[in-house]
């Protein structure tokens, strides 16, 4: 399975982009885009990705000078949307997909899609929301020390939105470090995962922190599988790497726009317009306002280009392959 980016092709695209950049903006604008941009969202309308998409494109469309048309293809943890995008959308830069890099890339590590993973790549990351470990407000486990002590007596149950999720990898990595075996229980989505911890269905849960913040004081966060950028909103929980002297990459929900690799290679000028306007969007203060209005956590709004995305994707695939037996029951 080919997973890394093809650097030579990227350099070629970059060189072509440089040429395009040298041409006056007015000329670029006149050629692309000439019509609306279609975006496939592999999750349901009204969900977190949809709100995030609406917030971001409300500003991006001003920079790009065209509208974005979302199409929702939920199902199979995002797999349906990607299959539709790769199988049916034209690779012409007028068709993009907006997904969640963390869990959706992990899918490929569990079960390969029908297309080659290298045939698409993420070029614009909108936000990074680190996963965290939390307990219900009434749980008898109120600290990491409680959890470690309790796990010496019995195998603790851990709620997760689904097995192949960055949060699951976070807790498995912690278990590996501490020599503890945790029993992951998929609770089908963020709502169920929070409910599981609050009502005591499981001993504690792991999930992306944005959803945990939204649960308010019904829950208490004990550990973040990455940097705690929001401090008190996550109960000042420490970073797993600081707390346990680990070197785990940040376990993130990271929403990003992706494109057919063929589109970027065949139309480097168009690709350049997309990436440059995407970056410009982050410089506009209106973005933060729109992001917060759609319930986004301002600290999580975080630009990332193709390289950062490729790095994250590779890390997810590597960790997914490593923990596949535990996550897939294989």
């Amino acid at each position, binding site marked *: 399975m080919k997973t890394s980016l093809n650097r030579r092709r990227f350099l070629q695209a970059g060189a072509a982009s440089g040429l395009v950049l040298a041409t006056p903006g007015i000329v670029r604008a006149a050629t692309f885009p000439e019509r609306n941009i279609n975006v496939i969202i592999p999750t349901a309308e009204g969900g977190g990705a949809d709100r995030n998409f609406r917030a971001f494109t409300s500003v991006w469309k001003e920079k790009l000078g065209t509208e974005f048309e979302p199409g929702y293809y939920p199902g199979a*943890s995002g797999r*349906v949307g990607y299959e539709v995008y790769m199988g049916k959308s034209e690779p012409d830069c007028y068709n993009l997909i907006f997904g969640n890099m963390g869990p959706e890339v992990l899918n490929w590590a569990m079960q390969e899609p029908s297309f080659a993973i290298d045939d698409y790549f993420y070029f614009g990351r909108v936000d990074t929301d680190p996963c965290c470990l939390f307990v219900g407000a009434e749980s008898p486990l109120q600290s990491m020390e409680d959890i470690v002590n309790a796990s010496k007596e019995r195998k603790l149950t851990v709620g997760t939105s689904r*097995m192949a999720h960055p949060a699951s990898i976070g807790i498995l990595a912690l278990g590996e470090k501490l020599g503890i075996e945790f*029993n992951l229980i998929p609770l089908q989505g963020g709502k*169920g995962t929070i409910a599981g911890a609050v*009502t*005591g269905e499981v001993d504690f849960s792991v999930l992306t922190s944005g959803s945990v913040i939204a649960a308010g004081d019904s829950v208490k966060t004990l550990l973040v599988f990455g940097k705690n950028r929001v401090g008190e909103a996550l109960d000042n929980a420490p970073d797993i790497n600081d707390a346990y002297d680990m070197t785990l990459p940040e376990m993130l929900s990271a929403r990003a726009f992706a494109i057919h690799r063929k589109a970027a290679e065949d139309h480097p000028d168009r690709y350049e317009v997309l990436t440059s306007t995407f970056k410009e969007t982050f410089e506009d203060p209106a973005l933060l306002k729109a992001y917060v209005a759609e319930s986004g956590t301002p600290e999580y709004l975080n630009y990332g280009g193709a390289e950062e995305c490729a790095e994250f994707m590779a890390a997810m695939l590597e960790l997914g392959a490593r923990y596949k037996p535990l996550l897939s029951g294989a």
Partner: protein
Amino acid sequence: MGDTAYLLFDVFLDTISFWWVIIPTIFLGLIVGGIPGFSAANTIIILMPLTLAMGLDTGLIFMVTLYCAARMGAGIPAILVNIPGTAGAAATPLDGYPMARQGKGQQALAISFVSSCIGGLLTTIMALALMPVLARVGFYMHSVEMIVVMLFGISLIASIAAQDMVKGLIAGFLGLMIGSIGTDVVYATPRATFGFLELYDGVPLIPALVGLFAVSEAFVIIEKTVIVNESAEPKKPSWHDTFEGVNIALSRWWHIVWTSIIGLVIGVIPGAGASIASFVAYQQSRAFSDTPEKYGTGHPEGLIAPESANNGVTSGTLVPLLVLGIPGGATAAIMLVVMQYHGVSFGPSLFEHSPRVGYGMFMAMAVSYLLMIFTILPLSRYMSHVTTVPTIYLAPMIIAFTLVGAFVPREYMFDMYLALAFGVLGYIARRTGYHVAAILIGVILGPLLETYFLRSLKKSDGDIMVLFSSTLGNILWVALIVSLVLPIWFDMRRKRRREVPAE
């Protein structure tokens, strides 16, 4: 206490002053609830920009009213043309539609409206009064207990199968098999998807629902002139049937009370929903009825039970949302987003920091149900005319509407084909004496049972004895056995009594 009473009264008056939002929203809710595939949730999503632009009070009252009205609206096509628009209304046509075919459509609508409104109003008041207690239900009802609750609903297959046990059980097991299509809930391994990605998340409920009930019904009614049986007495339109329906419902007030409480209790369990509640209420209603043999033939109690229960769920879902910050369903999740947008905090501190918002949502629900009974009831006279429309026009309209309804939730053409396939399956089942409701119960409740079952096994590392590991679970097991055995015992006793005078 005095302060809370004053606050509640103040919030009540305040909510009444929003009648100009509530009344138009009731009609909007009835329309979206009545169209298969549409629901309060996707309407609120579509209107989200508008909702966010409203003030917090207006936005919440709008959403709550739409939620209640859509729930009630889903019962209308279920009764009149056998189209349950949502899974929550799937048990409604079991007795509602036979009533419509007997020419009692108007009466059935009146029974449905009164049961829904009283059930909804009563459970809203109970939810308001018992909020701290009800919020604890979710702390005790875990996956093991939910397995037993599911079995209450699934045991309805056996009741339906009573007339022809072999065919009934075949239909039920076929439904359970169809329900197991899709990826498993633990490791997401695809099963029986036949290579269709669209089936990875299981058989979508709305296409299965409208296909089995409505499309197959359209195929059947096209063979007749009108929906109403030819043997039914032709009637002149009058208010009499509406009043009779109201009277029938009110005279069974106790039935409304206890079945709506089933809905309330199931509604407060995060993740459980109206489909479970309506089937469990129907099964319990039948199990403890003196006339169980009348169920499925147009028995008013068979209509009252699911309608009261699914409206009981509506108020129940607000409890975990407001007290614990856990949205019980899709509509509640969107309410959470809107409240967050307005900076309202959730969980235990809500009633401390924003009591008007917390009480206001329950009050909006209570006022909506109050106003609904007066606005909807008169419509029953006109709505029931649908059953007298010649089938030559009605059948194509049903098929067109239901196919659109099948398409709407996911916007997949595949789902329209699936609805047609289920329609053909339903038609064959009807023509050969297999009960479509038994198939449908398997399709709806089977995946839920499997979810809770696999979750319990995963928690116990595969130890099957986990099913008997909790006290509440064991009590529920006993209650399940009692509710299955008692009707048989009652039945035997009745037969013996009938035989005694003969001797």
